[in-house]
């Protein structure tokens, strides 16, 4: 299981190199070929025993984070989000710039806030990253404008629950890597696509069609749980511990009916715990794949994660293992899947 290594690497959208290098090194010897395309997607190929279909398994390597927009005179850094990050979840947190320089995001002490201010959401304009520099000169020796900033969160696992950053979508990357570990060949030609820049608008997946002309795809994601105290149960998207979440519709795409139903059938057939994803908000690379080239019908299977797009999210490791099992069984179905 590569969850620890993968989530502790920094790879904000457009800066996926560390994640890509790690994955590439681990999988190279286990697949038929590996390539990195122009946008930076890592695509591994494993030939099938029948090779009648090209089947893409996709997960995105990037995570949400920030970019340094200016180095201020006092040595603090102004920054902007890359991907969707709620500013309320970032104050008082550790960050890492370029994967190496530690920093903190501070906020004015409660003593200095007026009563009504306490209830207000902080604005990016009023937040700074502090890297321990006391002047612009000192700061620019370590960082410059355009540097990427990630949350600095260690992976921890206790009992069956794990905490860390970037489960969206390193969990998906880890699922793909588990599948690659399996030595057997499946009926369909398999392409493992580790994609870039999903969080900034489904960009990496936009160039898959012209390279591969796939027949179908499965997007493996880390997705919203929503099972927290603030929401009534009927508004939960998914629930930790109930198994992989299977999407029937999300923003910009209704999942191909045959694929959706086939995923459910496989899960039922092998008695793998699973749940429908019960909210339609949020999009995935499936929407982009459907809309590019001649169209790629895609399904979406996700590992539920609480508090995604924040410095710290929580998954159930059994959900992860069940996702690996489900995806594995789908591949074992071979050409019978979604036929």
């Amino acid at each position: 299981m590569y969850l620890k290594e993968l989530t502790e690497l920094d790879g904000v959208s457009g800066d996926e190199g560390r994640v890509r290098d790690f994955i590439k090194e681990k999988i190279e010897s286990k697949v038929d070929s590996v390539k990195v395309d122009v946008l930076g997607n890592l695509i591994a190929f494993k030939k099938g025993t029948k090779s009648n279909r090209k089947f893409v398994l996709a997960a995105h390597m990037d995570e949400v984070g920030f970019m340094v927009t200016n180095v201020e005179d006092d040595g603090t850094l102004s920054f902007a989000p890359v991907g969707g990050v709620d500013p309320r979840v970032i104050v008082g947190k550790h960050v890492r710039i370029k994967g190496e320089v530690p920093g903190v995001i501070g906020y004015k002490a409660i003593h200095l806030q007026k009563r009504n201010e306490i209830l207000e959401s902080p604005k990016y304009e009023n937040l700074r990253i502090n890297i321990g520099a006391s002047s612009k000169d000192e700061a620019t020796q370590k960082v410059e404008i355009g540097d990427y900033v990630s949350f600095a969160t260690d992976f921890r696992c206790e009992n069956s629950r794990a905490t860390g950053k970037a489960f969206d979508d390193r969990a998906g990357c880890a699922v793909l890597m588990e599948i690659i570990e399996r030595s057997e060949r499946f009926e369909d030609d398999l392409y493992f696509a580790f994609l870039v820049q999903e969080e900034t608008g489904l960009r990496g997946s936009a160039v898959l069609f012209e390279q591969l002309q796939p027949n179908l795809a499965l997007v493996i994601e880390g997705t919203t749980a929503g099972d927290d105290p603030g929401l009534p149960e009927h508004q939960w998207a998914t629930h930790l511990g109930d198994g992989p979440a299977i999407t029937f519709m999300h923003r910009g795409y209704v999942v191909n009916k045959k694929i959706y139903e086939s995923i459910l059938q496989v899960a039922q057939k092998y008695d793998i715990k699973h749940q429908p994803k019960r909210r339609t908000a949020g999009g995935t690379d499936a929407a982009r794949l459907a809309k590019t080239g001649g169209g790629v019908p895609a399904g979406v299977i996700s590992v539920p994660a609480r508090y995604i797009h924040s410095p710290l999210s929580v998954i159930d490791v059994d959900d992860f293992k069940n996702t690996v099992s489900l995806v594995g069984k789908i591949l074992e179905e071979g050409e019978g899947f979604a036929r």
Partner: protein
Amino acid sequence: MIDLIKELTESYGPSGREEEVQKVVLKHLEGHIDGHRFDPLGNLLVWKKGKSDKKVLLDAHIDEIGLVVTNIDDKGFLRIEPVGGVSPYTYVGHRVRFPKATGVVYYEGETPEEQKKNLSNLTFDHLFVDIGACDRKEAESIVPIGTFGVYDSYFYENGKYLVSKSMDDRIGCAVLVEVFKNLKDPRHTVIGSFSVQEEIGLVGASVAAYDFSPLLCVAVDVTDSADYPKGLKRHAMALGKGPAIKIKDRASISHRKVVELLEQAAQKAGVPYQKEVLTFGGTNAAVLQRTKEGIPSATLSIPTRYVHSPSETVSLNDVEGAVKLLVSFIDLELEL
């Protein structure tokens, strides 16, 4: 044609679940086309070969807006989210039709004050559906989570107008079917795309033209008619004045030359027409024009009152005009 419109609009086909409507379309096209196929996304593509080597693609989306079941509670009540641009208000007290059940949609409120508050700030989170089930298990067996529903509405003739759910865009589908029926020995090859998943983001049409590389595309869709009390300011479209040739909406600007050809076709056929500038909205033309290296595209609209409600209203006159216009269009030389 009225029977065709009734059958098409009363069919069930929310985005992603268009099979039933496609069957109706294929049934009516039998004997009028040279072939058909379904592409990987489920778009129904039909064609009739012409004498020239030019190909024209006509598009109408076959899906309609709807609802999808996202949760079921212990007592068997359903929770829903919209599929496409649906106002929650159109469903209050109205009915939703699922493949195996019909349900009543209503809103929460534990006090009269809360009811009032919820109704004035209505969201889908306030709504629930009652399908008459006794508990979760019974409801799940009839409408499992992930089941799609549509307005439970029927077609009728309201004076000189036609009223139904899903005129958007079954009326476009009806126009395409009638066009194919009227093409005996067409000058150019005509491809019809009955495209899926338009309402949630122009999905099907994004890839429908990919394999054909047509000379040009015309999307046939509805546009908002402004001719009712306090209807949209600045908009000219009205029922009964003929089909509307779109110049611009929020998602696309019609290709100038295709607009000119559509006008020529109308004049040649003696069909009155309107020009349309819509300050919002979009049609499949927006993605058809961006396919591959780019395809000159435009939209021919059927002016429609109360778009995205259970009672979308059109004039048969405009619909028949659109058919004549397009038949005449295909008989032009189509020099771009």
